[in-house]
């Protein structure tokens, strides 16, 4: 069980590292959002899954899941708002963002 936890937490950390790398290295806002939301959603989800077996009680486990769900909803909304704002500021700045974002998300 403990090795499974290590694996999950390690994978979660990997997603955070990759997401941060994407945030730093990707060329424009839309691809950066794409990278960082993966870190938020998958990375945090894996971390949460890895930590769940270590919880002492059911309420504690439920709180962990609640945190993940809240971050999921908040990061989705925040990414949408950022993308929406950028698009409103400069509608011609994204040559192919509409098609790629649909495919990848």
């Amino acid at each position: 069980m403990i090795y499974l936890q290590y694996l999950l937490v390690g994978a979660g950390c990997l997603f955070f590292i990759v997401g941060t790398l994407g945030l730093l290295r990707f060329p424009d806002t839309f691809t950066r959002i794409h990278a960082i939301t993966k870190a938020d959603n998958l990375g945090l989800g894996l971390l949460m899954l890895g930590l769940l077996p270590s919880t002492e009680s059911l309420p504690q486990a439920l709180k962990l899941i609640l945190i993940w769900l809240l971050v999921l909803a908040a990061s989705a909304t925040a990414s949408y708002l950022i993308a929406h704002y950028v698009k409103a500021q400069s509608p011609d700045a994204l040559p192919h963002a509409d098609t790629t974002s649909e495919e990848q998300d």
Partner: protein
Amino acid sequence: MQFAFDSMLGLGLLACAAGVFWSRDLFRSVVMFIAFGLLLALTWVRLEAPDLALAEAAIGAGLTGVLLLDAIGHLRQHNEHSPRNHWLLPLLCCIALALLLILSFNARPEASISLPQLVAESLPESGVEHPITAVLLNFRSYDTLLEIAVLLVAAVVAMALNDGLAAAARTSTEQSNRDPVLAGFTSRLAPVILLVAIYVLWAGSYMPGGAFQGGAILAAGLVLLKLADFHIERYAESLLRLGLAFGFLVFLAVATSVMIGGRPFLTYPEAFAGQFILFIEAVLTFSIGLILFSLFNQSPGQEVPHDN
């Protein structure tokens, strides 16, 4: 392992602080400041002060961050350039303050009585189980009463300074441009935020939490609602103003009403101390939430309606 984490935390704090001072534009500084607040909250957790961590995360990073971001928005509306050439003086002040704190920490007088022990001994009489709440609402409730008064004065001054501006902005942006995604998210989140605020308030009697933290969460919820274009303050403006003073008034009333029974100012009958504290904390949470929100609410709003 712990040491590695702590040193990373400390270095991260220093890096964020440097970023606040030396980043090129104000927006980046504010984002750095928010990150700084979150790291500071983690630091308080590592120092085993979860009450401070909660307050720092909610007020230091959250609400102050929102206020600063809002201020930048207004600065950008008036002039595009926000030159950063005033970092030397604040930096010197901060270094001087840090040195002063370090010196006074090293030269602090030997405590003649052990306060933690004193608190632990009289905790059973306080009516609550969490020592921080016992100190704030019972042993040193005088301080808390005055803190609420200070907050109230701050909100009143902000309102007095800004009344005309806010009224002008209100009429100019009467039409709502509510974003559907943000509105949907906020309207679903608002009950959760309210629940968390009440939970933190309730938890304050036996674990870290309490009126200030709960109030800050409540204020964050109200700010979020306003940002999503739900202007609840417009529907009940006089009620809002009453609510600002409500916590302080109730606290003062309770504090003086015990004098009828011949007790000194601000002491609770021991049998009911727990209920007294919970009642005061509940109204304080409500008022602190409204006061912190109204500080944000006093911002003049978007003066120029954008076309997009």
